[in-house]
């Protein structure tokens, strides 16, 4: 139960951070035209397919005792796992938000401004208008990190009672030959994914009516 809770906590906090950072960035990229925007969009798209083990390695090197942030002693803590997951999920959130904002009719954006919206009110209205797609960003981001194993294993270390989450526990149980436990944990993870996606879909469809 503690493993399940930690999984939810780490991925929940990570997706929250990713949304807070990714949604404004995605909106900004969606509405602004500037030199170098194409490069940024390419970087985001590349980031959407970032291999988690590469992120794990990067965060590991960053937080390792000899690394630039070594003094904070974050390696093998849930915080390190959150950092890795934020790096994995944020490009996804930015990418989906960007697509959602670009999917809005350009004249709808002009209409919001022409009715006298301030920059902040404009941003907020865009988020509201694109909220169904932003729920997809939330679902995609959360789905990608709750099921991710490579990065959390590397930076979390799979320490029992401290950094062990559902995915790393499944890997461990499989390695130890306790297949029934591994299958049970997998089923719980699947059920969790199903529940969360059902919740997002319900929210999305309810608002779409």
């Amino acid at each position, binding site marked *: 139960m503690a493993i399940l809770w930690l999984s939810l906590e780490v991925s929940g906090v990570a997706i929250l951070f990713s949304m807070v950072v990714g949604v404004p960035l995605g909106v900004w990229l969606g509405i602004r035209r500037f030199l170098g925007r194409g490069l940024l969009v390419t970087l985001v798209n590349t980031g959407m397919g970032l291999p988690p083990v590469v992120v794990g390695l990067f965060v590991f090197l960053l937080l390792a005792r000899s690394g630039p942030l070594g003094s904070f002693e974050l390696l093998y803590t849930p915080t390190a796992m959150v950092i890795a997951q934020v790096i994995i999920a944020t490009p996804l959130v930015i990418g989906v938000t960007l697509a959602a904002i670009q999917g809005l009719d350009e004249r709808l954006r002009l209409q919001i401004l022409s*009715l006298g919206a301030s920059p902040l009110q404009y941003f907020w209205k865009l988020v509201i208008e694109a909220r169904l797609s932003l729920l997809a960003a939330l679902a995609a981001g959360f789905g990608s990190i709750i099921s991710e194993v490579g990065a959390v294993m590397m930076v979390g270390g799979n320490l029992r009672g401290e950094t062990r989450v559902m995915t790393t526990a499944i890997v461990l149980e499989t390695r130890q030959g306790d297949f029934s436990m591994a299958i049970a944990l997998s089923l719980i993870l699947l059920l969790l994914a199903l529940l969360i996606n059902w919740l997002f879909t319900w929210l999305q469809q309810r608002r779409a009516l």
Partner: protein
Amino acid sequence: MNPLPLLQLEGLRYAQGGRTILDIPALEVHEGETLAILGATGAGKSTLLRLMNFLLTPQQGLFRWRGASVPRPVPLSIRRRVAMAFQEPLLFQGTVFQNVAYGLALRGLRGATIQSKVDEMLHLFHIDHLRHRSTRHLSGGEAQRTALARALVIEPELLLLDEPLASLDLPTKEQLAGELKHLLGRRRLTCAYVTHDQEEAVAIADRVAVLENGHLEQLGAPEEIFFHPRTPFVARFVRTGNVLPGVVEHSQEGLAVIRLQERRLEAVSDIPVGRQVWICLRPEDILLSREEKSAPSRDSARNHLAGVITALRPNGPTTQVTLDCGFPLLALITRRSALDLSLAPGDRLVASFKATALHLIEEGDTEKR
């Protein structure tokens, strides 16, 4: 009329992708007037409206609001004096009420104030009964009424309408055009109204600006645009019907003789001899008769042209007759007259019109007239 225009544009130039979209030396919108911006697709009408709404930034040009120059970036306080409604309703998710209330909420108004203002506007546009309806379940007319109410409820000092009726069916369009004109007049609203429909422009506007390829071709009262077009483009755009090239051959006491191929026409004009002109003649100013006028005419019309009917096109209560007079000449008569004269292609007719019916445009000198 206030001596200071509400909005003045000076030396406006807007380009996109290296192509000049708009180049307008000067344009003013006066308080309380409805200015129709008329032009074909791609003339730059919508771009002009977006510039007036400060949604686009021109490469060159100055905007003055009641005489004071508008700084860049445009302050929110000035942006909020203008509101625009587009051709498509562009409604937000939510109910009709929420849409109409949106601009008021942006301005920090709350509760009862919003309620009463929105109620009044819903009533004006006859959509009270739709207040709680989702915008997903509105007809085209209802949606456009909602969009217009949303723009008007914030009581903008300048209302910009970008072909707001273009996507509606004809009965709805006519009804809403009437209501809109009534509303604009009653509230003394200042409005810039983009349309490609000249009839809509005449119906609603105090002044008409005709745009062509980003240039202001003519600006004036509707009658002026329709009866005294300044360029051949404007003449054709307002369906003058006959826009023909000629040369002033003789001029005396304000009466000019214009050579049009091998024909001679008389017109009231002081354009000097030798000048190339465009002859504008509205089809409805032409009288058609069957008699051959070999002898000098006995009516007051100064012009009589013999021709052969090449086409007859009935259109509702009227019939458009195309005559070959050495050049094609369009005349418009009532359908009943066409029947009485038993007109048929190949028939010989005489087209008569007064010298005052001709409007001349001097070629290459659009400034003078």
